[in-house]
């Protein structure tokens, strides 16, 4: 299952709040797709410290696609 969070029209810290809430529902094969116009370093630190992996792609319109999964193993 992919949980999509479009944070581009949300004011901080709402995208981070929604993402942290979604982490609760994230199964082993699930993924969160977070869309933002910036790199959320505070969120990256939360993910790094709590066993999640992510990839970050910059699209031509400036959108950052951040794919979040549980760290394997």
């Amino acid at each position, binding site marked *: 299952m992919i949980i999509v969070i479009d944070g581009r029209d949300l004011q*901080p810290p709402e995208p981070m709040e929604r993402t942290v809430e979604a*982490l609760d529902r994230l199964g082993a094969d699930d993924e969160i797709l977070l869309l933002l116009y910036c790199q959320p370093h*505070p969120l990256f630190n939360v993910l790094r410290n709590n066993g999640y992996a992510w990839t970050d792609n910059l699209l031509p319109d400036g959108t950052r696609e951040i794919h979040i999964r549980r760290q394997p193993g």
Partner: protein
Amino acid sequence: MHPNLSFEQAPPISVPYRFFLVAPWFGVIAGLLLAWSGGEVLASRWTPESLALVHLIAVGFMLQAMSGALFQFIPVAVGGNVWRPLWISNVVQPLLILGALLLVAGFYLSAPVLLAAAVPALLLGVGIFVSVVLLALWRTPATGMTLWTMRIAVVGLVVTVLLGSLLVEAMSRGLALPIIELTNVHLAWGLGGWALMLVAAVSYFVVPMFQLTNPYPLWFARWFGPLLLAMLLLWSVLWFCDDLRPAQLIGAPLALLCGAFATMTLRLQYTRRRKINDATSLNFRVAMIALLVFAISGAAMAIDPGLADDPRAAVWLGMLAFPGVFVSTISGMMYKITPFLNWLHLQRLGAPISAVPNMKKMIPGDSMTAQFRLHVLAVLLLPAAVWLPSLAEVAGLVFSVSCAWLAWNLTLAMNSYRRFRDQIRASALRC
């Protein structure tokens, strides 16, 4: 919910707050000084009072606020770690306050001994600050134009402070240096190379994020900072050539480049996806309009140097730039940074996210709006007072009250953090 999530090791909340809470008081002093001195001190940028006023804003208000913001912004925006932020701020802030007060007193009293005493305090304070900040900015794995533009801005601060120190040495020891040319270059690096460069770097990140605009176009973010740097370098060199006409001429595209940043930011605000007219957006709008007026005035004076013959023309530009552009931008930023800081640090207490209050509850919206209105009045009165000196007293008083109100609102934000922190801790004890 995730009550056990580990949040990042941001600097202690007291680090940025101590800078933010001190900065507005320099604005209060500046306003009172203008009200006390009267409009005739605005007749030229070289009066002792004018020099004191500009450094109260630049070294007092702006440097305090921008230093505090960088301590917090570097970890949040570019993932860098400033080395021992609490220890560094304990050393740097007193040096910056001491240096600013000595510098201002030295200008106001025309006392070379005070000016000379300010130099080591500012060199040491800025030197330590810049060293740790540049290290953090170079070691971060992050990429992007916010990072690169911030690096250029910090180098711009170094150039500004070194040139300023040289000017003070020249004035206090009577060295035979081209004071006017050096002052022009010092001012351009302070306003363009440091302050506007940092505003641009921060804007690339926070304008889309907090004001819900589209991102700055990539071509613009790629070119604005490097082009501004290149033009500043060229302009600086040309001031020391025998023929001053090329230096005056390049002032026009330099001013128009600043105007391009203002136009782009206003355009992004105008076409944003959700119309949010909070104190941050409104302060940014005022700042960008002031920057546009500054750019048009500066370009006109560069094209027709006769317009700048009146010594009040430079003071007009200063009133647009310092209170108009930078105090507005900084006030708007602080109204967003402090609630966000509160939220981020309350999360670190380990409370469920639902237990952490909404950012809008950190500073009363009505109080921010009222302070913003008073600030706009000050931003209108201060440049007008350059041409109508009878307005100077009221302009100074309005600016002073506006800055005191800003300090009060920021104090409310800090008190909110303490109150919510105590509530979260108390509820944790009850569980």
